[in-house]
């Protein structure tokens, strides 16, 4: 995204406010055009035209307006919208949040260039997702299956290990696909500790060679975060739809993205919506999240795994709420499970993959998958209810069935959910699921058909008459 300098420098700045620079009206400037600003010391910043009129031209500065002044700053207009140069050589590379190399390995020679806002995929060209992605995590693969072309966010809380889960998934899906799959990683406002963690993990596991990283750090300009996910998604679409690769996009943390959007909106004195976020937050978020999917009769796919922090663990926070309204389900991390040392701390009850049915079953995972999932879910939900009850009235009055369900629940959490970092194949997850079902008597297994019980239920209680 380096800018050649254009002949004409404009110095007609009227006002600088937050990330916005207001100039006098400049002829021939395009809405959405890319801009370079040079301050009195010769430092360059990039920006984009936000509004043009006969009275004024408004530019938003991605690197922030610090150091710019009204008199000496020169503004250069590029004559074109913001684009990203793309090439297969981007694999294995790390870029900053504006798309400049961050790894000291020099510029990438672009094969093609694309506007980073993307275009909407025509609904008639979409292929309905149908293929299962194995993440190695039972709580996802068996309980909330991720499907190629899906957008499935992880809702997390401050201090919960969402990044660790994300890296684990990235590593595993690359390995599982025999390095066919590519991970594009967009980090917005991540700390340098997180940066080191991601970089090291990607490098050590060999995943880096199959990844492209765009990282905007916490002390990088906040406004740049507007660009980062768009760069990541433009790159993903290039690899998926130009090169026919399956691409998994991990975006963390979309809360920081939304906060950057809020900052610009308030600098423009727009009417604020809920908690100060602009009224167009839904539209803006969906312009990013909808960039996932598969195209009919074409190889390649874009799958999204955005990570969003719930401030104060509040699921009704507007950024979380709108994300839930756009994406196709959600994986929710639980503070309670984390405290109890369960990793990954995925709470199966509120988590949901809406496209699960499309990716599972016969010839995909296994014919009993749906029913086993239903049964595990129902028993676990029941178990949690019983736990709540016993907390009030004690366990003395519990019947055998209830005790069985409690034992199931205990094992479900500590063995099934708490799997650590060791990946399980879907077969292993299914087998473990069935093994746990043997904790309860067969008559309690109302969600699975007898033929599957006969086939898959292991020893212990199989003798119980139905």
């Amino acid at each position, binding site marked *: 995204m380096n800018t050649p300098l254009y002949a004409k420098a404009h110095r007609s700045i009227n006002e600088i406010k937050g990330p916005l620079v207001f100039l006098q009206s400049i002829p021939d400037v395009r809405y959405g055009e890319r801009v370079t600003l040079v301050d009195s010391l010769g430092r360059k910043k990039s920006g984009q035209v936000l509004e043009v009129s006969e009275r004024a031209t408004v530019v938003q500065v991605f690197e922030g307006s610090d150091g710019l002044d009204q008199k000496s700053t020169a503004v250069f207009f590029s004559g074109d919208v913001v684009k990203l140069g793309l090439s297969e050589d981007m694999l294995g590379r790390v870029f900053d949040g504006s798309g400049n190399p961050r790894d000291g390995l020099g510029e990438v020679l672009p094969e093609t260039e694309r506007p980073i806002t993307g275009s909407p995929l025509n609904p008639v060209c979409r292929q309905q997702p149908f293929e299962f992605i194995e993440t190695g995590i039972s709580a996802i693969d068996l309980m909330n299956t991720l499907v190629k072309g899906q957008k499935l966010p992880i809702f997390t809380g401050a201090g919960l290990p969402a990044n660790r889960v994300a890296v684990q998934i990235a590593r595993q899906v690359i390995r599982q696909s025999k390095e066919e799959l590519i991970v594009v990683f967009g980090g917005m406002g991540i700390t340098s500790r997180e940066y080191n963690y991601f970089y090291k993990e990607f490098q050590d596991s060999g995943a880096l060679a199959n990844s492209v990283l765009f990282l905007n750090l916490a002390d990088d300009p906040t406004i740049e975060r507007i660009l980062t996910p768009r760069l990541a998604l433009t790159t993903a679409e290039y690899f998926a739809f130009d090169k026919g690769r399956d691409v998994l996009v991990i975006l963390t943390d979309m809360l920081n993205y939304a906060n950057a959007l809020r900052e610009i909106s308030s600098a423009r004195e727009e009417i604020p919506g809920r908690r100060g976020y602009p009224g*167009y937050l839904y539209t803006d978020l969906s312009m990013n999240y909808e960039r996932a999917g598969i195209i009919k009769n074409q190889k390649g796919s874009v799958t999204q795994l955005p990570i969003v922090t719930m401030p104060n663990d509040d699921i009704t926070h507007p950024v979380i709420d709108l994300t839930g309204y756009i994406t196709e389900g959600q994986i929710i991390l639980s503070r309670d499970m984390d405290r109890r040392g369960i990793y990954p701390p995925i709470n199966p009850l509120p988590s949901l993959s809406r496209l699960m049915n499309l990716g599972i079953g016969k010839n995909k995972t296994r014919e009993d998958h749906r029913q086993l999932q239903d049964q595990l879910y129902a028993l676990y939900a029941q178990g949690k209810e019983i736990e709540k009850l016993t907390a009030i009235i004690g366990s003395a009055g519990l019947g055998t069935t209830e005790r069985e369900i409690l034992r199931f629940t205990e094992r479900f959490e500590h063995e099934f959910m708490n799997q650590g970092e060791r990946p399980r194949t879907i077969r292993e997850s299914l087998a473990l699921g069935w093994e746990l079902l043997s904790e309860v008597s067969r008559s309690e297994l109302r969600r699975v058909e007898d033929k599957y019980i006969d086939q898959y239920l292991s020893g212990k209680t199989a003798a119980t008459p139905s």
Partner: protein
Amino acid sequence: MIVGQISRIAGPVVNARGMEGIKIRDLVRVGELGLVGEVIEVKGAEISIQVYEETDGLKVGEPVKSDGRPFLVELGPGLLGMIYDGIQRPLEIIRDQTGSFIARGATGDPLTKKKRWHFVPTVKAGAPVAFGDVLGWVQETPAIQHKILVPEGIAGTVAKIKEGDYSIEEPMAELHDGTKLHMRQLWPIRRPRPIAQKISAGVPLITGQRIFDVFFPVTKGGSAVVPGPFGSGKTVTQQALAKWADADIVVYIGCGERGNEMTEVLTEFPHLEDPRTGQPLMNRTVLIANTSNMPVAARETSIYTGITIAEYYRDMGYDVALMADSTSRWAEALREISGRLEEMPGEEGYPPYLASRLAEFYERAGRAICLGNHKRQGSVTVIGAVSPPGGDFSEPVTQNSLRIAGAFWGLDARLAYSRHFPAINWLTSYSLYLDALQDWYTQEVGLEFVQMRQELLEILQKEDELKKIVQLVGRESLSEPDKLLLDVARTIRDDFLRQNAYHEVDAYCPLKKQYYMMKAILAFYGTCKVLLGKISYEEMLRLPGWEQLSKMRYTPNEQTESYFPSFIQDLSTMSVTKEAVA
């Protein structure tokens, strides 16, 4: 032609000057690319335009043109089975032009000009005709006769009319004054199509969904709102209705929602059968897809495009059902554009005219005697999804919709979490059409239907009260009749109200089966009441009836008559002996 220049660009709103004579709602072409837009404000010499395509790259000074006409939808044979964006661009043709991703400036004829339709006249030369009269028909799909109506502003005596094959551009009739009549007509989307008379509606839209048909029915010509937090089942509900409701025509509007959901409809509907005609469902469906990432101004327009098409088929005498998923995204588009116009905001930033716009939209639902000859009757039923932020129903879109719509189907996050689908809260939802429908149900299914509905609701209400007691003192302290009521209520919830939209059989439940299912539950309840005190409650719970009731919904629909009467008989006379229990 009015020609002016762009004076300001701010996202989807563009200002222009030098457009004397232009009117609000006129259609304009913006910039060198000729982007489609609509005038939404005229203020002195400057106008504001909402542009239906992305405005990136536009410059001040680029031309804006208009021929002073509003945005018009094309109506005529060939609408059924089509998928359009919010401004009626056919998405399949756009694909052929610009590939998988929608590029700007693409255009396409909403109705194919190539196809020739076989027109059969129903009036003869010499007949006087006027707006709304039926001139004849073409067989649009095997099940739908598309009536060709006289367009607005035309009246006279038919001079020539001839059976034959015509494209939508070729005149198939002529009046004495030389006016040529075509099968295609145009209509400005924001103006309701006129009718002769609104009439009260006494017929339910049968949906095959037990909770609606039994508890909260909507009339043909009525309106219902479905608010609910994310993931609670709005889309699954809307799609179930689009599949199974006994409407002649379905208009399904994906308004600011997901691309994959439109693909789902496009993938499934051609393979599903309309339960009444056996035809592929797609043959009775018109899809409007303006997904969340498509331009926001066209999203605002999409519901008007949809309802105009719905009214057009109503005018032929059909029952049309329209689903809008989601009206909140439409309201947000309104808010976004209002914000760019720097209008004074009302509640939650929505423009003050939100309530009136919503009312105008829902008012276009209704049952009517159509304009013109034959005294045809038709209806438009509107079912609007609402997506309240945080699932909080006190927000303006939900509240304003509730004020107008006749049925409220409230989706409940807690039910969805516990995987009780459809997650419609049976205690807070309501239908104002019950009185109007009482006669229909009594005549068509039987008086008992209405009474049984009442009984089931009462049991569920009683359950709610008892549950509060149970939370305080535990279930064991309840009397046996109360325990029984709780267990029957659970059966009503789990085995009657729950309905799996993905299950081969359960997805659609014929009305007669709904009737029998209620009857079975109440028959068994009666039997249990008799048994109270005669056997222990533990024994009562082991009666086979409970399990049988839990499976009745999977009885194949075509076996309804052969299975249920004897099943109900068994349940009501269940042997009272100890052996039956053991």
